[in-house]
């Protein structure tokens, strides 16, 4: 017994190191990415304050640029109002009343408090939380371009999984074609991402526009994603290898909009019903 105590006394620093290191590695590898975001949730309320402070300071210096962007967006939105449209074809049927259409997507604004860009799995923190109506799995856009998906929420802050995350996937298509592909980020530059699984028969050229397909649960159709930067097709493959330049500039991201799909619960419950039926019909 005395020998063991003596050993512990001699190597207690090494033992302490092993115990703490074991704990750190356990915490690092035991969690999946969503749980890691949960970890951020617990610390968010105070780290959020630190980052808000920094953002406030920084924003003061670029107020001009922000104003320009907001007024530009206002102008674009204003020009889409029905009273600014001229009806050029009186004979054609045109739905004008809003009884024929109901609200599907609601946009809420939020402010970016912190962005990481240099990891394999980056995160974005925004200053809207569950009190402000934020829920997990909502899509996030900025000036009409997709930014990411809400991955966890605290009372006052939310963490967004941006395109710049190794687990991020979204369904996209080339503007002008119906074939859809998969948006993924290979790491490295925060401006460039991959579009995979677009078949070779679809014509793709450098500079073409990539938009969301609408098949994903998170984003409405036809949101901006980016422009084709380069093509690196291999003759033996059936799909294009497309690199795109993202239209969201994460380095300058200040304001984002969070999308709530009011019909998502209905879609989800319908899907669950079908899956439950399938499970009954095909028991394994």
């Amino acid at each position, binding site marked *: 017994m005395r020998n063991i105590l003596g050993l512990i006394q001699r190597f207690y*620093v090494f033992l302490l190191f092993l115990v703490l290191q074991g704990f750190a590695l356990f915490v690092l590898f035991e969690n999946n990415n969503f749980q*890691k975001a949960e970890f951020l949730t617990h610390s968010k309320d105070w780290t959020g304050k630190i980052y808000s402070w920094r953002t406030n300071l920084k924003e003061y210096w670029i107020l001009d640029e922000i104003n320009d962007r907001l007024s530009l967006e206002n102008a674009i939105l204003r020009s889409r109002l029905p009273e600014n449209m001229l009806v050029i074809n009186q004979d054609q049927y045109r739905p004008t009343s809003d009884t024929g259409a109901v609200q599907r997507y609601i946009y809420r604004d939020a402010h970016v408090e912190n962005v990481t*860009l240099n990891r394999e799995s980056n995160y974005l923190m925004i200053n809207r939380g569950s009190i402000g109506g934020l829920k997990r799995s909502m899509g996030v856009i900025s000036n009409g371009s997709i930014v990411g998906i809400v991955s966890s929420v605290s009372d006052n802050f939310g963490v967004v999984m941006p395109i710049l995350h190794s687990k991020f996937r979204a369904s996209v298509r080339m503007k002008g074609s119906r074939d859809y592909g998969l948006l993924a980020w290979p790491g490295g530059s925060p401006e460039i991402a991959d579009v995979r699984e677009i078949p070779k028969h679809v014509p793709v050229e450098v500079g073409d526009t990539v938009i969301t397909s609408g098949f994903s649960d998170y984003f409405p159709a036809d949101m901006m994603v980016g422009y084709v930067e380069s093509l690196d097709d291999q003759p033996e493959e059936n799909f294009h290898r497309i690199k795109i330049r993202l239209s969201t500039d994460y380095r300058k991201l200040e304001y984002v909009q969070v999308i709530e799909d009011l019909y998502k619960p209905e879609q989800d419950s319908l899907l669950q019903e079908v899956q439950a039926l399938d499970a009954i019909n095909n028991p394994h």
Partner: protein
Amino acid sequence: MPLTILINIIRIAFLILLQCLVVNRMQPLDGLILPWIYIFGILMLPFETPRWLVLVIGFSVGWIMDLLSGPPGLHTSACLLLAFLQPLVQKLFSPREGYEVTQRPTVQSMGLPWYITYAAILTFFHHTWLFFLEVLRFSDFFYQLLHIIMSTAATVILMTIGQYLIYTSKNSQQ
């Protein structure tokens, strides 16, 4: 002595804030160079700090870094390795008669060659551990190696410049 403790706490807090609020926003060459200067606070701990305390400080600094920039455990693990190796490297390069009470691990106190060796070895271990834990894949091995070497060099250079900026020979006693 209480002054030394206070100064070390303030230094560590300042460096963590500097890291998160300023350095992390700068990414020259698309993130090829990523200096983690907050470890300066651990490297600057006085020689007579007990080893268990260095470990506890390393753990706390890493944990706070993880809180500020996620994922949990990443910086904690790297800082623990650094805190474990720091006294060993100090011992390896100690003068024959050991360190004097007035000496500190600074350029002014120990000389530039000693400091660069000390800082470069520890920074290299910390950065290597950190980057491989984060990426955990060896596909871009040479890119990763370049990344580690460039970042280590940047961190050591920044820490050395920082010493010349902050410390004159008068107040290098802390």
